[in-house]
């Protein structure tokens, strides 16, 4: 009777190849899912921090210094553009976050910016709040407004 050892060996080799192929495909899926999950968590955190900045600006009636102090950010000169406030003395808020979403001046994983916007209604102030990641991709952005008290 012929030995079945070569047949068993071939079977084992084929099964190892199939397993390796399936494992490689599934591993790719797992890695993609993990990256996407981390990106979703970052988007959620970006929304939370943007909301905090918006409410601080609304609550303090546009006190950028107060918001910068509370959020651990810095004030910088407002960027000028067609849509942005032209007043040179107006400041914008910049908060840098690390990958753990802790604010630090040296961190560079995410940045939150609040830039004053020009409004057409006297007595109304607005700011564009945006959160970007290190590559510059925007995670969230919206406009927040409040009343300017005389």
């Amino acid at each position, binding site marked *: 009777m012929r030995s079945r050892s070569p047949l*068993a060996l071939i*079977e084992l080799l084929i099964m190892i190849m199939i397993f390796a192929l*399936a494992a490689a495909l599934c591993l790719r899926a*797992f890695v993609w*899912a993990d990256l996407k999950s981390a990106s979703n968590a970052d988007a959620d955190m970006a929304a939370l921090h943007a909301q905090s900045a918006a409410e601080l600006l609304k609550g303090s009636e546009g006190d950028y210094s107060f918001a910068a102090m509370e959020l651990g950010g810095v004030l910088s000169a407002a960027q000028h553009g067609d849509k942005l406030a032209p007043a040179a003395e107006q400041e914008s808020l910049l908060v840098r976050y690390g990958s753990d979403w802790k604010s630090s001046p040296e961190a560079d994983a995410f940045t939150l910016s609040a830039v004053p916007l020009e*409004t057409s209604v006297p007595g109304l102030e607005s700011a564009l709040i945006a959160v970007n990641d290190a590559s510059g991709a925007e995670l969230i952005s919206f406009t927040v407004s409040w009343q300017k008290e005389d």
Partner: protein
Amino acid sequence: MNGKERPFSPPAIGGSSLLVIFAVLCLTVFALLSLSTVKAGTRLSEKRSEAVRAYYEADSRAEEILARLRLGELPEGVELKGDIYAYECSVSDAASLAVELRLNGEDWEVLRWQLIPASEWEADDSLPVWIGD
């Protein structure tokens, strides 16, 4: 020919094959589960971001109307109920921001700045749930 037929033996599918098939099936199922979880998480995250954007958009519209009222204008959509100015700004199909203001001398008092459901609440009492003794 030796005159004696060899008995037919089925192709050998050993334990290793069964084990690998089981492992591959498990891997595939777990991969599909993780992908569907992430897809649901992405949808939730997008909805959350959209809800935040929509709320602040409506809030900005409401602030603009308040600013116009402070200037002495009566913007469209503002109803005057006695001495109370009321208006709503739509946030989404399901919610809107309801605002009520009162003018006290020169100051505008905010009586209501509330996110409310756009449609009436319809209680579902079709299930016989336990409501206590």
